[in-house]
C-alpha cells in the first residue's frame, strides 16, 4: 500500500527531498561554529582588520566595528556636552534647536545607551581574534606593530567601559564589566570587579609600551599610549602613576599660547598644534564642526560657564570659544592634546599633597591663556561658589579654593571635548535640573553610570545591572 502510494507520488516526494536539502543548507539558520565567520590566515588579512579599526578612529570609514567610539568622535562630543551644565538648556531657541539634547535621561532611556557597550566589545572581540590566532609573521616588525596596536585598542575599550558602565572609583558596588580576553562565541562571562576591569585596561596599555609602533602609519605613538595610561590612572585615582605619564607627555609636547594656540583651536581637521591624536581627523560631512555647530548655536552657553572667564577678552578662550551672545564658536575636538595632560598633572600634584606645585602649574597654565596675567597666591584664589554643581572633589573632600580653581580651569579648557560629563561623574555625581519646554528634568546620581544592555542580562541573568535601572520597556 505504502509502496503504491510512493510510486504514485514520487515527483512530489522528490520535490520534498530537494526542499529539505535546501533547508538544511541554510547557512545562517542552522550554522554551527564559526557562525559564518572565518579566522583570518595571512598577515594581510589581520592587517586589514587592524587598519579598519584605525581608519574608523580617523573617521575615514565607519568600518565593521565603530572604533571611532573609543574617542567618542565629533558628533558624540557635541551630544554629551548638551547633557551637562556648560550650556543653558532653558535658553534653547525653539524650534530651531529642537534636535539638541537636553537631559541625559533621553539618552539612557533609549537603545543608544547600549551602543557604546556593544561597540566596545566588538573592538575587544576583534582584538581577541587577532591576539589569539595571529601566529605567522607575529615577530616581524609589521606583526609586532599590529599586536601592539591591538593591546592599545583593547585597553582603551576597557577604559571606556570602566568610565561609562561602572560607578566612579571609591563609591557604589565597585562592579566592573565582563572581561573577555579569548575568542569564545559561547562564553557568558559575569561582571568582574572594578579592580579587575581596571587591571585589564592597565595591563593591555602597559603591554603595548613593549611594542614599537611607527607613528607615521599608526595613530598610537608612544606618547599617545602614555597619555592613555595617564587618563586611566587619573580616572581610578592613582595620582602618582597618572602624574608620571602625564608629565612625560607634556615634556615632549609643551603647552602652546597666543597665536599658536589660536591656530590649533581653529583647526577643523588634521592634527594641529600639540594635539597628539585626533578622532575625526578627516571628518565626514555629518561630523564636520561647521555642520554640527549649525544646530549647537541654538543654545547659548550658561552663565555659570561664562562667568569663569573673569579676565574676559584677556583670556584668549573668551573670544575663541563663544560670541557676544554666548553662542558656540569652539571647534569640536575628540582626541588627546597636551592641555589635558597638564591639567591631569596639576590635579595629581594637589591630591599628592604638593599644593605648592599645583598652584605653580595652575599659574603657568593660566599664563599661557591670559595676557598680562597676574599669578594667584593661596590668598588671592577665588572663593568657592557654593551654587556650582560640583561641591566635592574626586576623593569626596569639600572643594578648597585651589581645587575649585583647578577644576574651573579644566572646565574652561576642555569644553566641547567630551570631558564635562565625566568631570561631573568623577567629582561627586551632583544632581541638577534643567527646564525644557515647560517641564523640569533632573539628572539623578545613578544616571552618570550607563545601563548594561538589558538583552545581555536576559541571556545571562547572573549579570547584575547598575543601580537605578529597574523597569524595562518593551
Amino acid at each position, binding site marked *: 500500500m505504502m509502496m503504491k502510494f510512493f510510486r504514485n507520488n514520487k515527483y512530489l516526494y522528490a520535490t520534498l527531498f530537494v526542499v529539505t536539502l535546501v533547508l538544511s543548507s541554510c547557512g545562517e539558520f542552522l550554522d554551527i561554529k564559526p557562525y559564518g565567520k572565518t579566522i583570518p590566515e595571512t598577515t594581510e588579512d589581520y592587517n586589514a582588520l587592524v587598519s579598519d579599526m584605525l581608519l574608523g578612529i580617523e573617521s575615514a570609514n565607519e568600518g565593521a566595528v565603530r572604533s571611532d567610539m573609543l574617542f567618542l568622535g565629533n558628533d558624540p562630543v557635541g551630544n554629551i556636552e548638551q547633557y551637562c551644565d556648560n550650556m543653558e538648556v532653558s535658553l534653547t531657541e525653539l524650534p530651531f534647536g529642537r534636535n539638541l539634547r537636553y537631559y541625559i*535621561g533621553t539618552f539612557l532611556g533609549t537603545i543608544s545607551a547600549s551602543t557604546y557597550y556593544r561597540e566596545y566589545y566588538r573592538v575587544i572581540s576583534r582584538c581577541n581574534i587577532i591576539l589569539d590566532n595571529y601566529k605567522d609573521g607575529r615577530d616581524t616588525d609589521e606583526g609586532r606593530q599590529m599586536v601592539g596596536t591591538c593591546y592599545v585598542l583593547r585597553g582603551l575599550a576597557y577604559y571606556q567601559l570602566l568610565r561609562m558602565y561602572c560607578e566612579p572609583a571609591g563609591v557604589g558596588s565597585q562592579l566592573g564589566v565582563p572581561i573577555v580576553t579569548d575568542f569564545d562565541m559561547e562564553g557568558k562571562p559575569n561582571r568582574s570587579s572594578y579592580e579587575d576591569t581596571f587591571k585589564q585596561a592597565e595591563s593591555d596599555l602597559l603591554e603595548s609600551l613593549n611594542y614599537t609602533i611607527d607613528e607615521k602609519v599608526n595613530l598610537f605613538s608612544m606618547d599617545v599610549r602614555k597619555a592613555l595610561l595617564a587618563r586611566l590612572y587619573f580616572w581610578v585615582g592613582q595620582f602618582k602613576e597618572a602624574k608620571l605619564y602625564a608629565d612625560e607627555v607634556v615634556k615632549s609636547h609643551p603647552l602652546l599660547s597666543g597665536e599658536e594656540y589660536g591656530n590649533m583651536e581653529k583647526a577643523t581637521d588634521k592634527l594641529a598644534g600639540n594635539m597628539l591624536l585626533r578622532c575625526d581627523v578627516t571628518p565626514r560631512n555629518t561630523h564636520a564642526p561647521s555642520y554640527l555647530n549649525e544646530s549647537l548655536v541654538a543654545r547659548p552657553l550658561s552663565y555659570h560657564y561664562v562667568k569663569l572667564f573673569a579676565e574676559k577678552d584677556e583670556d584668549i578662550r573668551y573670544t575663541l570659544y563663544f560670541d557676544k551672545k554666548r553662542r558656540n564658536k569652539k571647534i569640536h575636538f575628540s582626541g588627546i592634546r597636551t592641555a589635558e595632560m597638564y591639567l591631569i598633572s596639576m590635579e595629581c600634584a594637589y591630591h599628592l599633597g604638593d599644593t605648592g606645585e599645583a598652584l605653580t602649574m595652575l599659574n603657568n597654565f593660566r599664563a599661557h591663556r591670559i595676557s598680562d596675567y597676574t599669578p594667584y597666591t593661596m590668598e588671592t584664589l577665588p572663593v568657592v561658589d557654593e551654587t556650582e554643581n560640583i561641591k566635592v572633589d574626586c576623593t569626596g573632600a569639600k572643594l578648597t579654593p585651589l581645587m575649585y580653581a583647578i577644576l574651573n580651569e579644566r572646565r574652561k579648557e576642555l569644553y566641547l571635548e567630551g570631558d564635562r560629563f565625566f568631570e561631573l561623574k568623577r567629582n561627586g555625581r551632583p544632581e541638577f*535640573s534643567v*527646564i525644557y519646554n515647560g517641564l523640569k528634568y533632573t539628572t539623578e546620581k545613578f544616571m552618570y553610570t550607563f545601563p548594561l544592555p538589558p538583552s545581555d542580562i536576559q541571556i545571562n541573568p547572573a549579570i547584575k545591572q547598575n543601580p537605578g535601572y529597574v523597569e*524595562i520597556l518593551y
Partner: protein
Amino acid sequence: MKKISIICLIILAMAGLTSCQKTDELAPAKSSEALKYKMPEPTRLTDQDRQKLQDIEKEYNESVNK
C-alpha cells in the same frame, strides 16, 4: 485528498524556507536588543522653578544686550 495534503505540505515547507533568511530578521520591536529602561518622568514647574527660569532669562538678556 492525499495529493492535496502533500501539496499543502510542500507549500508550507516553501513558505517556511522563504521566511528564514536570517536569524535576526525579527521586527525591531520584538528584538531583545531594542529593550530599554524607563527613566524618571519630568515634573511640572513649581513657582520656584518659574522664578529661576525668569532669572536666567533676565540675566542673559541684560548681559548680551549691553
